[in-house]
Structure formats: C-alpha cells, structure tokens
C-alpha cells in the first residue's frame, strides 16, 4: 500500500460520495403506478387479441396458422362447421406462458390477431390467465375500438414503427379476407354498430353491445395505456 | 436489608456456578461462554470493592479480548476434536443425576473447590485481620498515579512483555501457516 494509492483511494471515495450526494438533490423519477396510470412504450407487445368487429363478428377463419406458429403451443383453437366451412368455435390462449414473440400475429393471414398493449393481467392463480375468445375480444375492444367522435377503420391493428413494419396496411390475402375487408364498417361509437349484421358466427355468445359496455367502464381509467397503444 | 451483602452473595453464586460449568460442561464452546459469565461476575466484585477501573479493564481485556481469542482458537482448531472432546457422558436419568453420578465431571470439582476454600478459611482464621470497611473513594486516580510513578518500571516491563508476547504469537502463527 503506497501513500499515493491511499490518496487516490481517498479522492475516489470522495468522488463517489459526491455523486451520490448529487443524486439526492435531483428529483425522483418514481412512477406512482396504481395511483396514476402507467404508460407503456410504443411497440410494447402485450397480449395477442382476436379482432372482433363491432358487429360481433370475429375475423378469424380458423386456419390454425397461429396454433402452428406458436413456439410453446399455448394457443388452442376449436373449430366448428358452419355452412360447410370451417369456423372458429372457441379460442384459448394461456397468457401466463406467452413469450410475446409476436409469431402468431405475423403468421395470421387475415389480420385476425393483433397485439394489444395490455399489461395488467396479474392474478393470484393461473386460471384467470387462460383467456377465451370473448376475453380477447374485450381486450381488443378496449384498445382498438374507436373512442367518442373518432372515425376508425376495422380491422384496426397495432401499427408501430418498432415491430411489424407495414403490418395492418398490407392487403389481406385470400378471397375471404377481402370479403371481411369489405365489411369493415366505418362507424361512430355511441351511435352504435347496431344489430349484428349478417349471420353471427356460432359461439359468439357476447354481442357487440355487451362487449362494448363491459369495456366502456374500464376505458377512461386506462387512458395512458390506451394512448400508448393507439399512439402509433 | 443489607444490599451489599445480597449483591455479594448473588455475584458469588453466579461466579462459582459459572466457574463450575467452565470446568465441567461437555461442549468446550459452552465452557468459554461460561468463562465470560464468570469474568463479568468478577468485574462486579471489583465494582463492589470500589475498584471501578479494574472492573472496566476486566471486562475490556478478559471478556473483550481473552474470551474472544479463546473462542477463535476453538473455532480454528480442528472442529472434530472439539466436539468429541473428553467423552460426552450419556446415560443417567437427568443431567443433574448424570453429573452427580460421574464423580470426575460432577462432584469432584465442587469437592476440590470446597476443600480448598475450607483449607484457606482455616489458614485465614489464624490471622486476626481488621474487619474495617472499604474506603468510599474510587481507586482510579491513585492507581493511575502510582502506575506512572512508583511502579513505572514494572509497568514498562509489562509493556515489553506484551510486545514480546505479540511478536511471539505472530511468529508462531506465521510458522504454522506454511
């Protein structure tokens, strides 16, 4: 131990103490999360949700592409035959194990799955973390249905510069997708999407009205998150 | 009620019991801890004798240093030897019964202490000492003065002794490290 070393150590310690003292004088950067709404950054991937039109129709075609794409196999899709065509009956997603890898969304040819920036899914047990199609539809409505006095085009999609560039703006492929794109209605909320137009897919037990009602109550609280989700 | 007498009896009992446990407890770590109790008790006796300085020195050096060194030594020497040290006596209904039953570990220390105390009492009783009481003043100041004047030479010799002991201990420890 040389004298110079001791001097150096003393200077360094003093420097460190100076830094920490300076930090004490700065303003804290704490988030008061449950008291004030938290924000997520643009491009945050939360939960893959099912696109449900205000008419109550799911755009999912039950092609199973997302089921195959999921690397951990947490998506389950039950199909049913409607008019001799395969349609989605039930959709199960175990969010608790979701990697948020976005592969299901990318694999979807019909833009029927989008990422909703939902992050308040904590629960005491695993059961609430298994989301069914109506839960997913509610989340979709919460983040992507138009707000008061806003015009919106369905299907909406997270269009962020951080991921899935150009997604959502691309044309859906396939004849059925084209058909759905045509049914995409422009509407003002409150004015109502009205009656479920056309045939209601089997299993769509929650009509659009009730879904909107359910989400309508939660909407004002989560303005921050919603803004972030729709920011792009 | 004579509080001084009561204090003396309590302190004496604590010291003697602790000393007894130092000699007899099967686990040597316990012996070291009982030693600390005994030494604190002796510090109390010093306080009663108005030797406040000695009491504090006793706590500082004996409890703070010597007992700690002993504990260190126990911890640093091969642990296996310490745990099996001097045969743990099992058998016998209770610990008391066991202690009494094994003469060497139970009764013999008490007997030895009692014998010694009786012998010394007999020896003391032949002397007619004044029964005067302890002077009220504390001895700190005269002690310091006499250490620095009358007993300066022994004081310095003691310092040299400590120095030599320190050097010796360090040398032993270093040689052991090889």
């Amino acid at each position, binding site marked *: 131990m040389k004298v110079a070393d001791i001097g150096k150590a003393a200077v360094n310690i003093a420097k460190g103490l100076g830094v920490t003292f300076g930090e004490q004088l700065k303003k804290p950067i704490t988030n008061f999360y449950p008291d004030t709404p938290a924000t997520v950054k643009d491009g945050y991937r939360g939960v893959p949700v099912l696109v449900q039109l205000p008419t109550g129709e799911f755009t999912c075609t039950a092609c199973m592409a997302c089921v195959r794409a999921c690397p951990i196999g947490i998506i389950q899709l039950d199909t049913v035959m409607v008019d001799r065509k395969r349609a989605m009956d039930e959709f199960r997603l175990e969010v608790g194990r979701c990697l948020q890898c976005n592969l299901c969304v990318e694999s979807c040819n019909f833009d029927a799955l989008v990422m909703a920036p939902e992050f308040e899914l904590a629960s005491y047990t695993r059961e609430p973390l298994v989301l069914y199609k109506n839960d997913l539809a509610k989340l979709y409505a919460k983040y992507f249905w138009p707000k008061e006095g806003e015009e919106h085009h369905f299907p909406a999609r997270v269009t962020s510069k951080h991921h899935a560039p150009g997604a959502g703006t691309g044309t859906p492929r396939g004849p059925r997708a084209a058909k759905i794109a045509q049914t995409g209605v422009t509407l003002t909320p409150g004015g109502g999407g009205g009656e479920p137009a056309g045939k209601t897919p089997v299993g769509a037990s929650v009509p659009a009205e009730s879904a909107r009602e359910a989400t309508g109550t939660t909407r004002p609280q989560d303005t921050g998150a919603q803004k972030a989700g729709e920011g792009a | 009620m*004579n509080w*001084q*007498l009561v204090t*003396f009896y309590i302190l004496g009992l604590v*010291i*003697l019991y602790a*000393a007894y446990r*130092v*000699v007899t407890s099967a686990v*040597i770590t316990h*012996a070291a801890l009982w*030693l600390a109790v*005994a*030494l604190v008790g*002796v510090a109390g*006796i*010093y306080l*009663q004798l108005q*030797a406040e300085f*000695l009491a504090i*020195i*006793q706590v500082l*050096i004996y409890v703070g*240093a*010597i007992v700690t*060194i*002993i504990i*260190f*030594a126990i911890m640093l*020497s*091969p642990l296996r030897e*310490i745990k099996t040290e*001097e045969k743990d006596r099992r058998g016998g209904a209770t610990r008391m019964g066991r202690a009494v039953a094994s003469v060497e570990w139970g009764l*013999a220390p*008490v007997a*030895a*202490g009692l014998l*010694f*105390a009786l012998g*010394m*009492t007999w020896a*003391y009783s032949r002397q007619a*000492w004044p*029964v005067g*009481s*302890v*002077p009220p003043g504390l001895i700190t100041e005269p*002690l310091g003065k*006499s*250490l620095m004047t009358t007993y300066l030479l022994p*004081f310095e010799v*003691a310092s040299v002794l*400590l120095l*030599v*002991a*320190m050097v*010796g*201990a360090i040398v*032993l*420890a270093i040689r052991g490290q090889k």
Partner: protein
Amino acid sequence: MVSLHGYLVLAAFLFGLGLYGALARTNAIRILMAIELMLNAVNINLVAFAQYLTPGLVTGAVFAVFVITVAAAEAAVGLAIVLLVARQRGVIEVDKINLMKW
C-alpha cells in the same frame, strides 16, 4: 457490609475450581480457561486485601493490573501454541501431546 473473609473465601473456592480444572482436564484450551479462573481468584484476593488492609494505598490493585496484563499475554501465546499443536498433531488433548519432538 461484606467482610474481608467473604471475598477471601469466594476467591479460594474459585481458585479451587480452577485448580481442579487445570489438573483434571486434558483439553489444552480448557486448561487455559481454568488458569484464567485461578488468576481471577488471585486478583480478587489482591484487590480485597488492598482495599481492606491498606486503604488509600493501591499496591494490590496495581498488582492486579499486572496480573491482567500477564494473563492477556499468556492467553495470546498459549493459544497460538495450542493452535500450532492442533494443526500439526490434530489433537489438543495435552495427554496425547507427550512428545516434545516428532
């Protein structure tokens, strides 16, 4: 008031216990502890004598200070030796350390 004899008898008993421990036990560390007990008994005697027989003079207390000093030195060196022996022989029972040279 505690008489001088009280302290003397206490010290004698303590010394007896320490003496027994030093003679009858085989563990080196415990022997050192017993020796500390004996030194303490002596110290009690010294201080008691000094306070009762020569009030005002502190010769006994000075002697006690020296005893404490020596005890500290003894503990340091003694335990260093015990440690060294324990390291080299693997035992700290004095009756097994009967060879001065290995």
